[in-house]
């Protein structure tokens, strides 16, 4: 079902490998069109297991953001974490590091990958 060359099903390992290739992979439910940037084994809107891997836009807008001062043990405080709205019809959003002064509504783009524990997208 998925676009040619995209992993199906989309595992966490394939998702992080995609990030390292500069691609933001996600899923679209074939039955209802719901999208997610955090791969799952079934759709949470309708329960369908018929979900296809999609390449999500790498540009979006900041939906919300927080600056973390007191950080978990593996991290050094003073960074920003955002939820980025990718503007797709299926309402895909991704949690990412934000390395910009951008506020809610500002345009940001996927620029590189942070790997403290595991790969996560960085937007700026």
């Amino acid at each position, binding site marked *: 079902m998925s676009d040619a060359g995209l992993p199906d099903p989309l595992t*966490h390992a394939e998702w992080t490998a995609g990030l390292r290739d500069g691609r933001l992979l996600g899923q679209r439910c074939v039955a209802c069109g719901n999208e*997610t*940037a*955090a791969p799952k084994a079934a759709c*949470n809107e309708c329960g369908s297991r018929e979900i296809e891997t999609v390449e999500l836009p790498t540009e979006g807008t900041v*939906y*919300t*953001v*927080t*600056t*973390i*001062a*007191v*950080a*978990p*043990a*593996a*991290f050094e405080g003073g*960074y920003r*974490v*955002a*939820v980025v709205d990718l503007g797709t019809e299926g*309402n895909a*959003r*991704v*949690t*990412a*590091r934000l390395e910009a002064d951008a506020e*809610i*509504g500002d345009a940001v783009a996927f620029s590189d990958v*942070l790997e*403290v*524990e*595991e*790969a*996560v997208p960085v937007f700026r």
Partner: protein
Amino acid sequence: MHQARIVGVGMTNFGVHDQPLPELFSSAAFDAMDDAGVDAPAIESFYLGNAMGGQTERDTHLAPTLASHIGLAGIPCQRYEDACATSSNAFKHAVRAVEAGQHDVILVGGVERCTPTTGLDTPEMTSVFASASHRQYEQPTGLSFPGVFGLLTTRHMHEYGTTEEDLAAVAVKNHHHGTYNPRAQFGSETTVEEVLESPIVASPFHLFDCCPFSDGAAAVVVANEEAAADFSGESVAVSGVGHATDTIPLADKADFTATQSARDAANQAYEQAGVGPDDIDVVELHDCFTGAEVLAIEALGFFEDGEGGPAAANGETALDGRIPVNPSGGLKAKGHPIGATGVAQLVELTEHLRGEAGERQVEGARRGLAHNLGGDAGTTIVSILEVDA
């Protein structure tokens, strides 16, 4: 269906407790049993909430361990884990077991030790708390738990104009309530200026917008109406319990300001109790961060969406306000020993409904509501207690 009732309550002071979990829990459990007038042989089952004992103090299989410490060995015991909603989930299952006639008398409790004094240091404990966010798609970003609520609250501020001063007013109000609660971790007043001048933890939250790390325990005895009538404790009815979840991770939630699981759980509880928000006299809700209280008073129907921000500043949620919220001081001032929090809310409400809440008594309270949230509002349990139902 049987009518579940709370017939006895007990809790420790919240703060620092340098004693093992069984010893800490036993004082709350015995207080609840003595308050109910229930001896150990009458208790048929034990429902425990403990969220993090495995991570923080290498202590698991806790339900039978704690039961054995208080003379309950042999009965069926079970432990629940749902992040900060842990012991409310234990309570919900106990209530359902009584309603179904499976058990007549149940001990429900929660216990946790989270302070750096007795356990892990702040960065380690911040990591443990963050473990309630998505392991693959949130934790690796460095998102902390205050950060989770920072994301929700920042969005609320954007959509509705809620201000940092509005948030600080929640802390000021709950600290003030805490001065009347001898069990509260913080028994001192604070001011909007003091909150805003305290260091940022995760924006928009300053240190004084956040609940503390706490140690503590709480317990209640739940019984059906016939058993309750035989015990000396003045009982209150459990007229409704709702329980709902929402999508994890946060980014997949449809609406960041709704805390939809709270709305769904509240609707279930209101429906079971046959009441609505206007019928509630006193509320204990999950103010892990000041912004969480703002989201909750809207989700529970006490304020229109977008109008919860100024509620504390306007005095509407104070002890003498239109709808008193967190007379105990809430998680903010009373403290938040994760697995004990949900049951501690029920202890507070029971005391108000009995007219035993002392200086912080909500006068004439006949119906109370508890809202206990777990994770990124991934779980919420809402319970309604009343004097006679």
